[in-house]
């Protein structure tokens, strides 16, 4: 009956949301506060209601109520509790519920903010958020219902239906099919929630942008409200992408972290436009420029979120991540068409009112560099978009299926990423408003010396690849500039306020979280770039079949195959686990245990590499094959991934920086008042 409750609650939420939209429009048209309050309450209710539905589904999953089709398909008796909960987002229907749940929580949260000074936005924010919510609720209720049960009808047929067909009895399996083994990884517990949070939270900036377009209040107010939401959304999205690549590295057995798979790219695309927005939003705040462009970026980001979700879920892409083919395609397509057309109509309608007042002053001004940054991000976005869409085009026009794989993306985006790195180093040095060659040249001197030292060190260490040297040089440059920036700030504070070094550092960072948080993010990016350069340019691999006691060699490492054991576990796996000893220059380092888990219940296997991680490199050993009878010979594939761990360290620094940038300001009220005053005077003009 829990299934009925969950389903019923979702239907009620749908009705309440419909009411909320009607009330909000009514309130906006009549300028009626009570209608508006009612709409606001309606939206406030959605969060708790969908939470209730999610609790129902989770209880069903955990209890193993196998009469519910979703529970039977994605859980099994042998799964531990946390995996049963994870099954919530293990399949199409459940993950739609999960997505809807996050959206409803954001919907409720946004009603709770202080709307005093921007009440005219409220009805339209409600409309936009609730329309999105209704769309997802509709998908769940009418097409992909996780609460649908299995029924046995007289002919012995099993049918899936929410409501009992005539003369049918509930069909309950004794055990479920279990979760896809690839999803049974700690990374998978966190990766989808973070990614979905990132996707969902971009709805809020979009809602404010649309509200600004509808009301015509196109001053800076919306961008100031949106900024924090956007940083939070971006933080989650980044976290989701990073966790996803870590997961790929750990369980996919590719020896890599990113495969330029269409589904990965569809998560990257909103991240790219979101990142561009975070940068250009700063210019609008500081200089009042780029209003049109920012509007475009926010709308684009939201549309890319919806587009990416559509690609992943409609069955149009086949990939490791894609969900099975599903009937949600047409409805999703309609929603995409609706949001794209509606947002572009609105945007073009207000286009001329979004004109910029202030002008650029110098090619080397910070604004100009930010614009170049935007151009580069958009360039990468275009490459990604075109790569994802091209196979569709090709199939439609030539009937030929083609693959657009990693080489295309790597070659096309590498120069742009390098340019971004360069920019990341130059931009902090360029002053707001104006700067000239001379000033720039002067401040570059110190970092340049550092770059030179690093390059000399790299050459001594035997790096000969010119592209790698370029990459390392750029990384060193950015790092030097960031350290220099911190040092200058600290020095200045010490001079003015007489603070100690650490106090100055603390004050500097906390007083201007966005700038210094941003620098820390950049520092993280540089570290990540180190890891990426390492694995992309210096990865080496070997594969061989060896008998027990024999060895494989790679990059100074020696790997000896010691033995193999095959055994069953209590949770329904058959594990084949090899023992290999790793030696470097004849010295024993450690044992590694690459293994392959075979899951009986869904007859799938997962390759778990044995990895030895150091700051310098990873030795990544995969068990490819073995002789089951004698366990004498086994095939191993070994990857040597230099510097890869800097990618993960960089990610942590990156997320820390993003947290600092997104952290609420302590003296928010005073800032707000100041902003509000400005805006009032602005709207009075």
């Amino acid at each position: 009956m829990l299934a009925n409750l969950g389903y019923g609650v979702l239907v009620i939420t749908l009705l309440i949301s419909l009411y909320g939209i009607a009330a909000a429009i009514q309130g906006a048209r009549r300028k009626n506060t009570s209608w508006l309050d009612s709409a606001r309450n309606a939206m406030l209710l959605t969060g708790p209601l969908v939470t209730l539905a999610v609790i129902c589904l989770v209880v069903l999953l955990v209890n193993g109520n196998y009469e519910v089709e979703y529970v039977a398909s994605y859980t099994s008796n042998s799964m531990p509790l946390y995996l049963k909960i994870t099954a919530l987002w293990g399949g199409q229907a459940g993950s739609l519920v999960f997505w809807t749940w996050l959206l409803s929580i954001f919907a409720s949260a946004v009603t709770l903010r202080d709307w005093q000074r921007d009440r005219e936005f409220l009805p339209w924010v409600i409309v936009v958020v609730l329309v999105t919510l209704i769309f997802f609720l509709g998908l769940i209720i009418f097409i992909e219902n996780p609460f649908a049960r299995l029924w046995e009808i007289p002919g012995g047929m099993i049918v899936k239906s929410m409501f009992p067909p005539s003369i049918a009895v509930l069909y309950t399996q004794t055990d479920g099919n279990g979760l896809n083994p690839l999803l049974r990884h700690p990374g998978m517990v966190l990766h989808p929630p973070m990614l979905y949070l990132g996707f969902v939270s971009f709805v809020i900036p979009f809602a404010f942008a649309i509200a600004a377009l509808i009301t015509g209040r196109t001053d800076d107010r919306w961008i100031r409200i949106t900024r924090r939401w956007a940083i939070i959304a971006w933080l989650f999205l980044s976290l989701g992408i990073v966790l996803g690549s870590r997961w790929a590295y750990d369980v996919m057995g590719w020896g890599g972290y990113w495969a330029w798979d269409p589904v990965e790219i569809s998560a990257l695309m909103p991240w790219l436009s979101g990142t561009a927005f975070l940068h250009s939003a700063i210019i609008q705040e500081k200089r009042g420029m780029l209003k049109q462009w920012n509007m475009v970026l926010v709308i684009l980001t939201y549309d890319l979120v919806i587009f990416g979700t559509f690609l992943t879920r409609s069955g149009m892409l086949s990939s490791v991540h894609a969900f099975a083919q599903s009937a949600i395609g047409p409805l999703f397509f309609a929603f995409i068409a609706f949001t794209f057309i509606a947002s572009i109509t609105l945007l073009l309608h207000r286009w001329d009112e979004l004109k910029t007042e202030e002008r650029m002053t110098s090619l080397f001004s910070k604004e100009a560099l930010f614009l170049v940054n935007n151009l580069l991000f958009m360039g990468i976005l275009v490459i990604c978009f075109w790569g994802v869409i091209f196979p569709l085009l090709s199939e439609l026009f030539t009937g030929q299926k083609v693959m657009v794989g990693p080489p295309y993306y790597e070659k096309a985006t590498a120069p742009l990423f390098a340019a971004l790195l360069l920019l990341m180093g130059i931009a902090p040095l360029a002053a707001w408003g104006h700067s000239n060659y001379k000033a720039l040249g002067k401040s570059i001197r110190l970092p340049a010396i550092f770059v030179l030292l690093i390059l000399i060190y790299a050459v001594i260490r035997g790096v000969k690849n010119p592209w790698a040297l370029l990459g390392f040089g750029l990384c060193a440059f950015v790092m030097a500039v960031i350290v220099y920036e911190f040092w200058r700030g600290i020095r200045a504070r010490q001079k003015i306020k007489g603070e100690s070094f650490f106090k100055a550092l603390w004050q500097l960072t906390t007083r201007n979280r966005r700038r210094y948080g941003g620098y820390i993010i950049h520092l993280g990016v540089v570290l990540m770039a180190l890891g990426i350069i390492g694995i992309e340019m210096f990865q080496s691999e070997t594969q061989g079949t060896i008998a027990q006691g024999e060895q494989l060699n790679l990059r100074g490492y020696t790997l000896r195959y010691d033995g193999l054991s095959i055994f069953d576990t209590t949770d329904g796996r058959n594990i084949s686990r090899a023992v290999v000893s790793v030696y470097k220059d004849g010295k024993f380092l450690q044992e590694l245990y690459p293994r392959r888990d075979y899951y009986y219940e869904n007859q799938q296997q997962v390759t778990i590499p044995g990895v030895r991680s150091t700051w310098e490199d990873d030795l990544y050993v995969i068990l490819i094959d073995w002789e089951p009878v004698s366990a004498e010979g086994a095939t191993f594939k070994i990857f040597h991934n230099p510097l890869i761990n800097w990618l993960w360290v960089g990610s942590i620094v990156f997320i820390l920086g993003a947290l600092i940038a997104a952290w609420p300001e302590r003296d928010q009220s005073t800032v707000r008042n100041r902003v509000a005053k400005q805006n009032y005077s602005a709207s009075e003009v």
Partner: protein
Amino acid sequence: MVTPSTEKPEQKKSKPNRSFWWRILVWLMLVAFLIILGLGLFRTQQGVMAIGDELPDVTLTTFDGQEIRFNDLEGKIVVVNFWASWCKPCEQEAAELEAAWQYYEPSGNVVFLGVAYADTESEARAYLEKFNISYPNGLDLGTRISNAFRIGGVPETFVFDRNHVLQFVQIGPFQSLSQIKSVIDTYLKP
């Protein structure tokens, strides 16, 4: 700080014309994008060839080096089976398909064609030998045949009537010889 924009006169002159074309361009791009997406989605949703579709005019090069153009098989019932040597379920129906072929071959009214999907030649030949398959089989060169039939996997079997209209699709293996016979007999009757 924020003041209503005061437009420069020289900008205004050329404005309406240019922005009009920009808008048209934006809409055109959006429409093109939606059409592509829609068509792609339509294709995905279509799934395998639908009942009532015509036999695609493709050519199968058999392992014996024979070229069989599907349209040359006029007036005959055509059974096209997609399989692969790496496909376990395919093995379930291999013997039955061959038996069915043995049964219908003398009449000359039914043609069986086997298409090996994403298979390697040596493996495919070994498979045919293993199951003693005697009807014409060949590799799906350039995956052209499977594209034309829009197969979703292997095994899949398509049965066309004498007018080369698709009448029956079996997704997954046939369960028995009698099942194959009952399908073919339905369309064999004049």
